[in-house]
């Protein structure tokens, strides 16, 4: 259940990136999670929503995009995407592959409401 600690890290980064008086305007936090990141999206939503309760970020939501694992074969140079955890080149069956993406855990952007929307 390290999602709680992940959620705390996310909140810390948002606090660093958004001016204090604008935290209440944060609507969505866009997150990219690779399949190899070992993070459960549902648990992360639950943890995040629990921690932001009664804080300026209480109306914000996580938007999580799950990224597939991309492997590059060291033998035939083919790049393949996989939603599965198979670390063998599907083109030539070589086990000598490099993972080029799939372990990401990145906040890509933070979306804020305009202040006028808040007044309404």
């Amino acid at each position, binding site marked *: 259940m390290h999602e709680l600690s992940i959620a705390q890290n996310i909140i810390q980064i948002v606090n660093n990136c958004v001016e204090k008086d604008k935290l209440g305007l944060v609507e969505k936090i866009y997150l990219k999670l690779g399949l190899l990141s070992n993070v459960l999206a549902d648990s992360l939503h639950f943890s995040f929503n629990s921690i932001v309760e009664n804080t300026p970020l209480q109306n914000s939501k996580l938007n999580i995009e799950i990224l597939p694992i991309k492997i590059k074969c060291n033998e035939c140079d083919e790049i393949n995407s996989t939603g599965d955890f*198979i670390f063998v080149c599907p083109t030539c069956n070589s086990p000598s592959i490099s993972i080029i993406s799939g372990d990401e855990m990145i906040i890509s952007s*933070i979306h804020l409401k305009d202040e006028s929307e808040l007044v309404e």
Partner: protein
Amino acid sequence: MSAITIERKVLEKNDQIADELRNKFRSKKMFVINLLSSPGSGKTSLIERTVEFLKDKLNISVIVGDVQTDNDAKRIGKLDIPVVQIITNGSCHLEAQLVRDAYRNIEDEKTDILIIENVGNLVCPAGYDLGEDKKVVLISTTEGDDKPLKYPAMFRNSSVMIINKIDLLPYVNSSVEDIKTNAKSINSKLDMFEVSCKSSEGIKEWCNWLMRLTKK
């Protein structure tokens, strides 16, 4: 609506501290392993056998993480080597910050190998860099041959897999070859060792590997 594009790693803080630690470890010429496994696979027993084997040749220090109790530090302390216990109070993994705090109590000038025994868990610790040279994953013959397939990130991120409790092979439905085949399908570069922390079989080969990588 306005958007701030940031592209920042969620674990950037942990990674920064891990890099600091890595630089510190390198400057002290210490070889550092992050020892990972399920609860009960034998991490502490492996440390005991390793220290017994290498004590006259190398100086080993240990940082050990547990959710509760200092039982492991007490066990390892009996071997008369420096040991620092981290109690995570519920957290399922060690983070670089916890290791940095514990490391202040390690006499690094006198340490050739630092073993960081992580919290028993094959999921969460996989993603947390602690500044180590190598992640070493331990699996025991009683756990089921398909553990590498069930926890791919852990076996993919590790450099070494040690299979423990080979003395129990006659009594359990487990095959070392199947464990190895499954692990290879996740990470073909894994170095592998078979040991029994009960009988000390295979400990010599593992310790020879460790000795080859020490830097002092």
